[in-house]
């Protein structure tokens, strides 16, 4: 859900790029965070916790808390709240600690 008009702000967004989320093709703006692009597409669940397998999403959104770790282009534990979106990124829900391949 994007804000179309705002009384104080003008949002300067990058060009539209395509990326995949768990195999699903989505669009976002280049240079926004992956978390912002996912939220704009209505996706708020980013990983599954290690022990109790509970869904986890964004909490601090500024790179502090590690709640939003996902697998990006095969690399686990990427903080998607600060990682910028690029064309063709492969973003996946992370289960547990993730695995370095």
């Amino acid at each position: 859900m994007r804000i179309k008009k705002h009384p104080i702000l003008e949002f300067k967004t990058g060009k539209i790029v395509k990326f995949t989320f768990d195999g699903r093709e989505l669009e976002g703006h280049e240079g926004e965070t992956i978390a912002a692009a996912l939220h704009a597409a209505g996706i708020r669940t980013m990983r599954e916790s290690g022990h109790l397998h509970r869904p986890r999403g964004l909490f601090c959104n500024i790179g502090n808390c590690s709640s939003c770790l996902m697998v990006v282009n095969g690399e686990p534990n990427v903080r998607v709240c600060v990682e910028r979106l690029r064309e063709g990124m492969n973003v996946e829900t992370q289960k547990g600690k993730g695995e370095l391949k």
Partner: protein
Amino acid sequence: MLSQNGIPTAEEVTSVLPPAERLTKGPVAIAECFQNIPCDPCYHSCKQGAIQEFNDINERPQINFDKCNGCGSCMSRCPGLAIFVVDATYSDNEALVKIPYEFLPLPEVGEIVTAINRGGQAVAEAKVIKVQNTKVQDRTVIVWLAVPKEQMMEVRHFRVKEVR
């Protein structure tokens, strides 16, 4: 009570209102600032010298109602959007209330909007007389509403009607 629900009491409101006699002379500013916080832009914004200089930045604004001409310059400088201008002389039945507004959509001149009190409740219908939005206001728009005179000390916000 402000400290509990964000709504000033009738006594608090009365304590900052200009005398009835001043209201008969035209527009005047009312600073609904009821807490000693470190803030003084209203003093610096007033070209009439109507807001008393702060000895301590935590003082509350004191308006000299005789010097105030109701120009509204202070309204868009107040970080708390807590200053309003009331003109009780607008017409026989209506008063003008100037409201700082930072929402979209902006109303149009002539539009009828729902006038709202300090508690967020609809209290009247109001007609938009003017929408001030100059560069110096820096995105704090000032909307002039004509409201029933008996509501001039109640109306402090408005809502654009959903069907335009």
